[in-house]
């Protein structure tokens, strides 16, 4: 037992190695903070009666899907694409977007090209609850940076 403890101590006693890993971990944390914090998410819980933002006109530019619980009248997500999936329906695609320390699923308009990872995505549309519980913006307007 004492021999094993001594071996473990010898293995862990590498200050130079841990200093390097600490620097790398600090860089990783900084990258996560910067990556997750960029962009913005703006939510309109209700249809506004006055002082509407300019993107609000896109909120009613399509048919809101009625098979999902609607969470907010509209939302605008401006962030980076993390991952994307296509299907199960023909022409159906979803993109996970990170912005303003929020993860939002964007359902792309039918037939829209799927943005690759790291692409800047701006989507406007009603906010519903996705099947997996995440917040989903049904994009009536999509801009790729």
């Amino acid at each position, binding site marked *: 037992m004492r021999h094993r403890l001594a071996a473990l101590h010898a293995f*862990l006693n590498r*200050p130079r190695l*841990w200093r390097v890993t600490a620097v790398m971990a600090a860089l*990783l*944390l900084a990258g996560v903070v910067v990556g997750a914090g960029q962009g913005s998410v703006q939510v309109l819980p*209700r249809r506004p009666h006055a002082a509407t933002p300019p993107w609000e006109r896109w909120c009613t530019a399509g048919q809101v899907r009625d098979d999902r619980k609607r969470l907010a009248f509209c939302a605008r997500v401006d962030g980076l694409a993390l991952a994307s999936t296509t299907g199960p329906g023909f022409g159906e695609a979803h993109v996970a977007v990170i912005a303003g320390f929020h993860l939002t699923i964007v359902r792309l308009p039918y037939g829209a090209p799927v943005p690759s990872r790291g692409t800047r995505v701006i989507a406007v549309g009603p906010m519903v609850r996705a099947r997996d519980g*995440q917040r989903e913006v049904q994009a009536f307007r999509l801009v790729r940076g």
Partner: protein
Amino acid sequence: MRWLAVTVALLSASAALVAGIYLRDRDPSGWLPPPRVAARQDAETILLEIACPRAICSYRLVGNPRPGHWVASLFTGAGTVCFDIDLVAFDVDASRGFTGATRVPCRPAGTASGA
């Protein structure tokens, strides 16, 4: 050993941040206003939709019969009407007016009011 602890702490912070964002956004209730506030907004919207001037008209929330539903009593000058507002279904459409609120008989009660 100190740097090992620093490494573990920083990696834990990164993992906690990612997990926190993911888990928080799985709970979308935080994006909605509290039910009472939403019911007030819906009642005010109904007043706007029926073009009732604010100087004459007012409303009161008189009950919360079941989760997600609030009853609002609207004083329109000519009388009192009550609506059962479905907070999830309530919506306003330029052509159809408001939906998600059904007329119900008024019962004497009082919990909150607004002008």
